[in-house]
């Protein structure tokens, strides 16, 4: 049994934490939060590229480091803990992983080395309005290789160089790789619950689009990409949830009320114990997801769903109850609690809300039982 990070992976994780402590403190996060014109922190992005993290799992043939997915999970956990204000998930978990899994050789050669070098930001454009996207609700379409339609919201859409876009072609959904610098693309930056991560509306008017994956298999392709992303996002959520517990604990140990530290009151102790329980359930499920992702196991859809559900629940609970423990201070702009509360919403919504994943999990369990 070897169900934990290895010593080398722990070392990588420790180094990542030290790096982010130095380069991604609250001032950096707030620099993006407080400036509507900043979509992300460019210095941090450049430094992360310098570290090789953008190409961590990209094969060496495409100028990446060729590390395993468990290593990327370790990095993701630390990025989540630091609420890093950079388009890492869109670029690495979605575009790089998506192209590695479904891209043609030409697409891999065009995209992966540029991602590894920090020259290319990616994004995923599926949503067109409130509610879940389905084959029948999809209005964006590709005809004769040209994409037309509106995608809203698209995380990092205002700064991305390339997008993976879900659109129908010949009446059936497919996934397309689109150069956002091309003619016919217009972008509008939108306001977000989490201003430390940017969102945009993308309008396509006859933009050149190249299919990624099989024709007619767009929903399946997107789902397979999201399964991979869900595991990595779960580690970001876990990192955030752990940080919330730490912040709440530290605050409770220093705050006096009624003549003693509030950390001694059972109402607070039990709340923090509840956070701990949820975080450990999330960690164990995330580890299973990491294993499944790393070896591309057939269990990945179930493992990813469970990881996402547990991590979404843990981060939401920890972020809201951390504010509660901080009392009135927790409700101020100046205390960092809301950074995590906002990010917990961003991470839970960006790849499909937990309800959707619960349904996915149960239908997978049904199929497994039927088999």
């Amino acid at each position, binding site marked *: *049994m*070897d*169900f*934990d*990070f*290895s010593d080398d992976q722990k070392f990588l994780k420790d180094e990542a934490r030290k790096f982010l402590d130095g380069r991604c403190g609250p001032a950096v996060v707030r620099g993006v939060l407080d400036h509507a014109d900043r979509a992300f922190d460019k210095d941090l992005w450049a430094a992360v590229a310098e570290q090789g993290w953008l190409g961590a799992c990209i094969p060496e043939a495409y100028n990446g480091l060729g590390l395993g997915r*468990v290593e990327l999970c370790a990095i993701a956990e630390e990025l989540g803990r630091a609420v890093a204000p950079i388009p890492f998930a869109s670029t690495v978990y979605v575009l790089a992983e998506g192209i590695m899994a479904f891209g043609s050789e030409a697409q891999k050669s065009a995209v992966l080395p540029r991602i590894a070098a920090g020259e290319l930001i990616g994004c995923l454009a599926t949503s067109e309005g409130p509610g879940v996207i389905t084959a029948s609700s999809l209005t964006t379409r590709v005809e004769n290789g040209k994409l037309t339609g509106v995608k809203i919201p698209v995380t990092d859409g205002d700064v991305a160089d390339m997008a993976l876009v879900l659109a129908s072609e010949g009446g059936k959904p497919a996934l397309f790789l689109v150069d956002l610098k091309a003619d016919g693309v217009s972008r509008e930056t939108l306001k977000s619950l989490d201003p430390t991560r940017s969102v945009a509306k993308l309008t396509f008017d006859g933009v050149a689009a190249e299919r990624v994956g099989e024709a007619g298999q767009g929903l399946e392709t997107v789902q397979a990409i999201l399964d991979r992303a869900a595991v990595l996002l779960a580690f970001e959520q876990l990192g955030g949830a752990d940080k919330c*517990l730490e912040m709440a*604990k530290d605050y*409770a*140990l220093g705050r006096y009320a009624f003549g*003693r*530290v509030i*950390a*001694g009151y*059972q109402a*607070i*102790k*039990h709340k*923090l*114990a*509840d956070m*701990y*329980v949820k975080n*450990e*359930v*999330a*960690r*164990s*499920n995330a*580890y*299973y997801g*990491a*294993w499944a992702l*790393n*070896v591309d196991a057939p269990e990945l859809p179930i493992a990813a*769903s*469970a990881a996402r*559900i*547990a991590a979404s*629940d843990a981060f939401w609970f920890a972020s809201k109850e951390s504010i509660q423990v901080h009392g009135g201070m927790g409700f101020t702009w100046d205390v960092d609690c809301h950074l995590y509360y906002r990010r917990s919403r961003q991470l839970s919504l960006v790849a499909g809300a937990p*309800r959707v*994943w*619960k*349904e996915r*999990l*149960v239908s997978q*369990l*049904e199929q497994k*039982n039927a088999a």
Partner: protein
Amino acid sequence: MDFNDSPEEAAYREKARAWLAENAAAHRAQFGELKPNTPEHMAAAKAWQATKAAAGYACITWPAAIGGGGGTPIQSVIFGQEEGKAGLGYGYFTIGLGMCVPTVMAFSNTETKQRFVSPAVKGEEIWCQLFSEPAGGSDVAALRTRAVKDGDEWVINGQKVWTTGAHYCDYGILLTRTDPDVPKHKGLTMFWIDMKDAAVECRPIHQMSGGREFNEVYFTDLRVKDSQRLGEVGDGWKVALVTLMNERLAVGGSSGPNYREIMSLARELTGSTGPAIKDNAFREKLADWYVQSEGLKFTRFRTMTALSRGQTPGPESSIGKIIAANQMQELANTAVEMEDQYGILVDPDQAPAEAAFQQSLMWAPGLRIAGGTDEILKNIIAERVLGLPGDVRVDKDVAFKDMPTGR
């Protein structure tokens, strides 16, 4: 990150499997299928324990010199897994070997150890733990059972409660109050006692679940020798902590129907808008239970990983019972409500799944209390894992006899 045994672990597992294949079959051939909590079942359990002890598979982590297997914690886990797969988990010895005998080993003289350890390992004698009282459950140090010195003996009077297996146990470790004039933790002393003494009376507790697995134990002028004392006079709390350290591990797992069983049930039943399995509210709950159950399973894997690496496991296993007990209650209730009007039936011949959900529903309240209530376990996580301060102890400096008791 993987689930594979190391080469040494794989070799041990192979050896254990081969041994089990041979001996489990022989055991079954001799005893057949038996109903738990019957004398025949107990006889089979004792025979199996003796077979394991002879082969070094009982108390695997204890030195061979005292009857153990001289093995490692991970070997113990591996054998437990294989024994479980072979369907041979007898629970009668868990508390004695997990909690009581280690306490005896830690606090008694060589003669006592020689007398008791080996028979316990072989399953010849079974031990129980006599701590909880009507006036001291979560606050066990508030116990009232009194031991008074009389020459070279102690005379004991009082009552214990929730003693697992007292009626079939041979010996027990008993926590008593020897000095009521000092604060509660300081006036306690531990003894080992003979459960078959005429001054010891066991009365089964009629539980709300209908069963009678636990006991009240009464002591009326029970006389024990001073040589039966474990630890110093007044040091009973320190001794008890050694016992309790192992309790959460011993109580850990839970039985009863889980997400798989309720999924099977939902497939067969009709809900208000179609098949019960298609009800969205149910599907969301099912997903949550799956995530919790798997979370606990993988948390055990993390604990095993630490053992496998020769490290001390982290505190993560402390989440197990809180989750398992609460899930058991919620899952059982959802199943019973899914059965709708029929859910009220408890006859195994009539209720779906042989009334497993109804039984689980009535057992769950006990599981949320036994071996540390939800509330005490959360205190433990808060204090020992997160390092938060202990509660304000208003009775810390008060002599036991002056403590408010509410009656």
